[in-house]
Structure formats: structure tokens, C-alpha cells
């Protein structure tokens, strides 16, 4: 579905300085209908990688092949059409919704942007918004409310509905639950799981929360300083990490089990 080959991204520094290699020869492939987890700490290159996949950032070297097409080879118009097939849900549901737009307008906007591909008139768009809100567990009474009238979990549902409005195949989930409380996070994770089953979606799930990644992902890649240090089935990586970085990261993961604390001896 998505194949990243030898991707590098270099940000030039000021004159005289070397700049930053945000991504170094990153290769990974994501199969249709799987959940692929990308785990890394701050500054590891997770965001740069997603920006490249979304076509927001031109890579320095390497290629991104989506469904057999090299994204770099596409004309701007073809890239625009391609973007309908790759959508993103952002981390912060407080910052990623325009406070001056209603839930209806927020969810309808991508359909206006992609009207050439979708060909929906105003009435059809509105019907679809109702359908989408229902899909993410919101009702018609929420249509004309503004973002501040929603809780964090509800806002993230709106963000998901917006991403789904243009029938994407690949959904990039950039820390979709890190701004939410655990009880709400659980609901959103379950919603994402149900949607994936129902709409046959492929997920690229980015997070630094290892517990969440282990829960939702089939395969996982660990990224450290712009390089993929390890990738494989989630179970293998969590049970038998093969790299030093992987071992360190898994050991640092705070398990909600007092008997697994490094500071205590089990009773």
C-alpha cells in the first residue's frame, strides 16, 4: 500500500553550519488494512516522515510509493487528487479545529477542497456530514455547534470524521490520543479499531505511548535520530526487542502493574 524507500530529509542550516539530517535512509512498507505503528521520542523524525508522506515536505532523497505510484512523479494537480486518499488526524484536538467554524463546516471542508474528485453538491455534502458524525458517535444535535462546545474526546471524533469525509484509504494518526484522558483515549482507540474494520482502512499510527502502540498496531517501527533502528510484528518487538534502543525504550515503558516496577521487589 505504502512503500518508503531510502527516504532522507536534510534541513540546511545557516551558512557555515551543517544543518540537520532529519531522516536518514528510511525504508518501510505498510500493507493494506494493517495498523503500522511508528514509535520514536521527540526529535526522532516522526513528524518529518509524516510530512513527507502527506506531500507537505519534499524529501531530499528516496521515494514514497503509494499504491504503485511514486508521489514525487505526480503533477501538483494529481498530487492534490492523491491527497484525498491519504488523510491525517492531528494530535491536538484543541488546536486543529478552526474555532470559528461549526462541526458541520469543519467536516464538510475537505469535500469542498476535493470537489473535483468527489463531485458532491451542497445538499449531498450535508447529508454526508450527518452520516460521518453518526459514524464517529456524534448526533445531529452537534451539527451546528462550535469546537469550544465539545469535550476533547468529541473534538477528536470531529477530527476523525473530517479525515474520513473524502473516503481515504490511508489514515495517518499523529498521536491522536495523547491530549486525551485515559477513559476517553480508550473510547477513541476503540472507535478507530471499529472504523478500520468497517471501512477497510490502513493506519499509520504515530505515538510515543508504547502501551497504545502495542494495543492497536500489527507491525511497529522504532525510529531514533532519523533512522529506523528496528521494525517487525508488534508482539516480537515488545517481547524480544532486538536493538539496544528498543530494549531501553521497552524497559522505560511504565506498565500499570506495581509488581513490574524496577524499584520494587514483587510481593
Amino acid at each position, binding site marked *: 500500500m505504502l512503500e518508503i524507500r531510502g527516504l532522507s530529509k536534510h534541513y540546511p542550516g545557516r551558512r557555515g553550519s551543517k544543518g540537520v539530517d532529519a531522516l536518514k535512509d528510511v525504508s518501510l512498507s505498510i500493507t493494506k488494512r494493517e495498523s503500522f505503528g511508528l514509535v520514536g521520542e521527540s526529535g526522532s523524525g516522526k513528524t518529518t516522515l509524516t510530512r513527507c508522506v502527506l506531500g507537505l515536505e519534499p524529501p531530499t532523497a528516496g521515494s514514497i510509493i503509494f499504491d504503485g505510484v511514486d508521489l514525487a512523479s505526480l503533477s501538483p494537480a494529481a498530487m492534490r487528487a492523491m491527497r484525498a486518499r491519504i488523510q491525517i488526524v492531528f494530535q491536538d484536538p484543541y488546536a486543529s479545529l478552526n474555532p470559528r467554524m461549526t462541526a458541520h463546516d469543519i467536516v464538510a471542508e475537505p469535500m469542498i477542497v476535493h470537489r473535483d474528485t468527489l463531485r458532491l453538491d451542497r445538499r449531498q455534502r450535508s447529508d454526508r456530514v450527518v452520516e460521518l458524525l453518526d459514524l464517529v458517535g456524534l448526533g445531529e444535535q452537534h451539527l451546528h455547534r462550535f469546537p469550544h462546545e465539545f469535550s476533547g474526546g468529541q473534538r477528536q471524533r470531529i477530527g476523525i470524521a473530517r479525515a474520513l469525509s473524502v473516503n481515504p484509504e490511508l489514515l495517518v494518526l499523529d498521536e491522536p490520543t495523547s491530549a486525551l484522558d485515559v477513559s476517553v483515549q480508550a473510547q477513541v482507540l476503540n472507535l478507530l479499531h471499529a472504523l478500520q474494520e468497517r471501512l477497510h482502512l490502513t493506519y499509520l499510527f504515530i505515538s510515543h505511548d508504547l502501551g497504545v502502540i502495542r494495543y492497536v498496531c500489527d507491525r511497529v517501527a522504532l525510529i531514533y535520530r532519523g533512522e529506523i533502528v528496528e521494525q517487525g510484528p508488534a508482539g516480537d518487538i515488545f517481547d524480544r526487542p532486538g536493538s539496544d534502543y528498543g530494549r531501553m525504550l521497552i524497559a*522505560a515503558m511504565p506498565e500499570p502493574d*506495581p509488581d513490574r516496577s524496577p524499584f520494587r521487589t514483587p510481593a
Partner: protein
Amino acid sequence: MALLEIDDLHLAMRSFEGEAHVLAGVNLTIERGEIWGLVGETGCGKSLTGLSVSRLVPSPPGRYLKGAIRFDGQDLLGCDETAMRRLRGRRIGMIFQDPTTNLNPAFRIVDQMVDVALHAASTDPSVLGLPAGAGRGERRAAARRHAQAMLERVGIRDAAQRLDDYPHQFSGGMRQRVLIAMALIGRPDLLIADEPTTALDVSVQAQILRLLYGLVQEDGLTVLMITHNLGVVAQLCSHVAVMYAGTVVEAGPVRDVFKAPGHPYTRALLAAVPSAATPRGALRGLAGVVPNLLHPPAGCRFASRCAAVMPTCFAAPPPAVPVGEGRTVACLLAQPAEA
């Protein structure tokens, strides 16, 4: 005597829409050397409880309706600002969530730390190991030495040189260490840590937890750790208090509470955290919303979302029942321990 005793604390906050009853009978007893985790979700009052102990809740809008906070026997709600200033930064240290905004970017680390040290020394000169009549220059020099010692204590290498750096020259984890060092300057008895690792990466979080644990073991510190991360509590804390909508629903030794949660909310919270054994789709969220604290329900505040709710739950707030060694559960279904 317990180091910290919060007894039936009620706090109201004035807002445009009326007065919200944000803390409704918080009870907590912390003995020396314990590490307490105060957990709960956004808006449950855990930070306000921490701020109440250091008396940093502005008044107005805050107003204490009832209850007491006793620190080493001293009633804090009766203290005036002068008395509180003698405690803060000296016997009660505090660290907060965001290590970036809590350091002044315009001053070198050393200046910020020396300020705190001199403040602490103004109430207790022994903090710097100086006699009462020491001169100004002597005090400054001692404060710098002490600041350096504290930086070394929290694991910052080349502390002597790093003292003269500005906050932006430190990474997030290092800044949090600087803030911990700053909180330790007055050799506090109690450290209140409000989400100290939330802004940090997991590997750095693990280092900070190790540091806090070491301080408790070696320096006899007592910690009140405010967090929403149940994993952090399970790892670090000896005891835990679970808060919901301004009340402590369950408290006790961390292993007892996590292994056999007594309150339906604690159970729901633990069921919402994915663990190694959770199959996909099996995670349980919590339906419903937190009650509006402007018009709090008469009975149990969790009743509207509780899986085990009974008609009697809506009548009156359930009392905290002792259910075992040092353990309470505020639920009508809790079985009191045999005396």
C-alpha cells in the same frame, strides 16, 4: 504524627456562571517517607489539592468552605502569607509539569537558584550551613556552592560550568532536573510534583522517576506526585489516592489498590489503560461525562457513570469506608474491614 494531613477539605471556585464546588471533602494522610500518587482525569481537582497544600490557590476566586490541611501539625489554612512564604521553597518544595515555562529564560540558572537559596536561608540560615550573622558576599558564595551541590545531586554533569548556562541551553529532561534541584535547595520535607514527567519522553521520564525514588530512599524525602499516568504511579508510588470530580474515591497502598480496586471508578480507570494482555478492541472506555460542579449531584458524584449504581447512590455522598490496612473506599458497596 503524619507529615501531611488533609481533612475533609472543601474548596469552591467563583466563576461567571456561579460558584463551583471543586473540592468536596478531600481526605489524605501522608506519613514521612511515603510516595503518594494523586491520580484522576482532567478537572478532578488533583492539581487544586496540590496547590492548596502550598496555599497557591488564589482567593478570590477560591474559597475554602470547610476542612483543614495540617503540615507537621501546623494548620496551613490558618497561616497568613508571611508564614506560608517561610514554608514554601523551604519545607515544602514544588515542581510543575512544564520545565520550559517554569524557568526564566532571561536569567542564568545560577541566579535563579541562588535567589531560591537565599530566600530559604532567610528563614533558616542552616540551609546554607552558615551562622546567623554571615555577610552578604559570604551568603551568595555559599548559595552558589549549595546550588552546585544540588545540580550534582540530580545528576547534571559539569555542574560548576552548567550553573552559568541559560535555560535554553538545557534539554527538557535536564530542565526538569534543574527544577527538581531548585525545589531541593531548601531541603524540603515534602515535595509536591505536579505532572513532572508529562512533557518528557519515556526514556527521560524513567530517569526522572529513578531520581525521585533515589531522593526518597537516600534523603528521606516525602513526595506527593500528581499525575494522570497510572503507569507512573504503579512504578514509583508507595500509595495512591484516586480522585473523581473533587472527591477521593479510593486511597491506599498502591499494590492493594491496583491489584484489587475497590471503587467502580478505579476499576474503570484501570480497565481503560492498555496492558500487555489487552486484546485489541477489548479496552473499556467510560461512557458519560463528569458532573457539572456548578450544580453537583447530591449523592455520589460518580453515580451517573457507574456500572454498579443503585437508587441509594443518589441520596447522599458515600462516606470513605476503611476496607483494609491504610485503605479507604468511598462507595456504598465497599465492605468495611472487620475491626
